């Protein structure tokens, strides 16, 4: 889970900041000449500057290519998604079927969702069987966002609305049933 890493990186950094802040403020009781303090701070500053640049460049180079825009196309399965106040219309175009109103997809295949909206902005968010958010894109009227995703495991996935769309926003869900191919 990318967001779990994000949260952990945050926790570590936030604790570090609080510790540094506590250290600096506890040290404020014994006065020292401002000039020598400035010199000390400058020394740490240049070190910190290069460290920060290094971390930023590393994080940037590592994460940017993973952006969802670059998941290459040529999908095996195609689904049209239309957000409406306040439900989802999931229309199989290729390699998927509707069964009792549920969208049924094969596991392990590259799926392309072509997402748009019939009225206001919605957000098409896919949640795993155990309730973790996997990926999302906006559903904007007049535009179609192409979201590529491969469901690895079979199970019942959920669609949540991820953009506030009025009083039905908190009750705008859909199901996606993912089966092992051939079942």
């Amino acid at each position, binding site marked *: 889970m990318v967001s779990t890493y994000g949260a952990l990186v945050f926790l570590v*950094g936030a604790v570090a900041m609080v510790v540094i802040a506590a250290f600096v403020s506890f040290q404020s009781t014994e006065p020292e000449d401002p000039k020598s303090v400035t010199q000390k701070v400058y020394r740490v500053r240049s070190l910190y500057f290069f460290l920060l640049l290094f971390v930023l460049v590393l994080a940037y180079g590592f994460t940017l290519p993973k952006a969802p825009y670059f998941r290459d196309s040529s999908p095996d399965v195609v689904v049209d998604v239309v957000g409406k106040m306040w439900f989802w219309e999931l229309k199989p175009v290729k390699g998927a079927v509707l069964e009792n109103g549920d969208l049924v997809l094969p596991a392990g295949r590259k799926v392309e969702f072509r997402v748009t909206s019939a009225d206001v902005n919605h957000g098409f968010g896919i949640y795993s069987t155990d309730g973790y958010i996997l990926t*999302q894109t906006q559903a904007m009227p007049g535009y179609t966002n192409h979201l590529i995703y491969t469901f690895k495991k079979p199970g019942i996935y959920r669609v949540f609305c991820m953009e506030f769309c009025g009083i039905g926003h908190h009750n705008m869900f859909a199901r996606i049933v993912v089966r092992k191919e051939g079942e």
Partner: protein
Amino acid sequence: MKRFSITPFAVILPLVFIVLILLGLTMRANQGELIQVDPQLFYAIMTLHGLGMAGTAAVGGLTALAYLLLRYVNLNTKLVYFLLFSYLITVVGLISATLLGHFGPGWYVLYPLPFKPMGVWPNWSIGLAIVSLIVLGVAILLIQLEFFRACVARYGLKNSLGWQFFTGSGEYVPPLVIITVDAVVLPGVITTLVGAALLMLYFVKWLNPSTELDPLLIKNMIFIWGHTLVNITMYMGVAVVYELFPEFSGRPWKSNKFVALAWNATFFIVLLAVFHHLYMDFVQPLPLHITGQTFSYLAAVPSTVVTVTGFISQVYKSGMRWSFVPLSFFLGILGWLIGGYAAVIDSTIVVNNQFHNTLWVPAHFHTYFLIGFYLILWGFLFYAMGSKRESLAKLGLASYVLGGVGFLSMFYVGGAFGVPRRYAEYSMIPVESLSHLAQILPKIAVVFIPYVLVGFLLIFISILGGSGREVQRV
């Protein structure tokens, strides 16, 4: 010497703030199923709370900046009062539109939701909300233009922007607070004009419903305006700290080449990081997505390398006394940093693909507002009112910060587990474990929020203990 009384600001802004916290408490209590609020009312409250908090922060920041600039330049103080007057009209207008009319498209009013009320909010409430925002927008634009005019009139354009450091002509160096022209006033003016255009388009649409606007273009305009306004508000808080902290640390905090470079860079960072709000609009041109991540990451450089190290040189081994004002500034800068750090993480496109519109978003911006900007504002008001009620204020601060940390943690945990934001209720979520978690977190938050409220009341009472000190002309 112009007379400028801070008192009306120190009374009105905190009163509105208290009401807005109560609205926040209501929302959290409803999400935790402790009370029952109709979804229509919930989303109207949410819209009022969001617009109100962002607007009050902007007005507070501009007031503080005006007070500090008055030390150095000749501002027309009538415009500052006009700002407060317009703000009051806007508050009354928005309260009517939301609480009476149930106008509830959320604080960033994405197109076309305000115009598709589905029978919930009447037509008059849409017009009233648009006009109310125009009233405040005009006042904000005027005061920003006045800041710019006054600084340039006294110091010249080049010096106001801090460019004398780059041309090396060794001219007179204006005080640090003047340099905020770069990162606050200029981006503010530019983007308020975009906001004005947006509100005009909305007004036209309201008068003539057959008008069709482009949702993607409008979304870009909304964030160019809204993101920037919120962002420069934060920098106004930083400017207050730059200007006032030295009075408590006893050490000078001067402009130099690095500071000038940092604030000039911030001009671009403020304007170009905006695009991180549209990562999940895959149709947005790719270069704009990349610009978003690039400049959001770059934001960490001037703020930490220059501002934080400057701040540390103020505090470290200074022998200073920690009275309420420097303490609130210190904690405010810390909250600003922690919230900013959470924002930078979320500005990573892959991470945003999961965090977008989860509780991570309110988590980070509530951090740098509640325990960031607003703390600095309370410190400023305490200072400007010349209050002496130290121990009461510190007691309030302790309660406010402890309560705040507890309240915020519940947002962060929710975000980490992908709980979506802006859900009036979580009971409909079809995954049992997530629905359960999403309802437990607000229950815990509701225990902490009264500590914020009571803490703030104590701070407010202490602020009112002063009678308002004269601006000292330098």
